[in-house]
């Protein structure tokens, strides 16, 4: 049982390049999330999904796109990377829980640097 995995662990991009971060979970969770973590700002929600084929915007969605074609996978795309997107990205998943706010299980993170 691997839990939540993220690929890749590290990546360096040049401004304007594109890339996709992959998140996979094996817990049959309905909900999946993408966060970014920056010093002194905690975790901020980028996009999330409440089920296969659905996505929704979070707190800081600009410059990112997501897709949830399979229940176990949640992809985060950067179409044209900018230095402001240098951050650590975390994926998480959860069940529907009580009132839609259950325990989230986090991946190990992807450290992205945009030059």
């Amino acid at each position, binding site marked *: 049982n691997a839990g939540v995995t993220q690929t890749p662990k590290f990546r360096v991009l040049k401004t304007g390049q594109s890339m996709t971060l992959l998140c996979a979970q094996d817990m049959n969770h309905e909900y999946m999330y993408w966060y970014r973590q920056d010093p*002194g700002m905690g975790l901020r929600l980028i996009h999330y999904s409440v089920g296969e084929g659905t996505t929704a915007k979070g707190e800081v969605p600009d410059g990112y796109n997501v897709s949830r074609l399979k229940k176990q996978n949640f992809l985060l795309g950067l179409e044209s990377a900018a230095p402001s997107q240098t951050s650590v990205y*975390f994926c998480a998943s959860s069940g529907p829980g009580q*009132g*839609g*706010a259950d*325990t989230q299980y986090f*991946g190990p993170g992807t450290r992205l640097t945009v030059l």
Partner: protein
Amino acid sequence: AQSVTQPDIHITVSEGASLELRCNYSYGATPYLFWYVQSPGQGLQLLLKYFSGDTLVQGIKGFEAEFKRSQSSFNLRKPSVHWSDAAEYFCAVGALNKLSFGAGTTVTVRA
């Protein structure tokens, strides 16, 4: 919308001493509250959560938290800190399928 404030950015505590981390939340209805811990270079791990019932919640690694509705607080405590408790701690409030995190408190443990 919900929000969380963690007033202390950094706390230094001696090994064996007690620890208390503060968390204040803002939410109009009954909150779902969480504490997560992040060790350096790692993802977040759940310490404990409060959904309803007893306002004193026990978690893993000897941590506990107390929900006080009148003060909109959910402070985390540990009676005796170990060196391995050095980490960053995040309080979060959950609603509408989402969590909102505080900015975090970094705990340093000195020998």
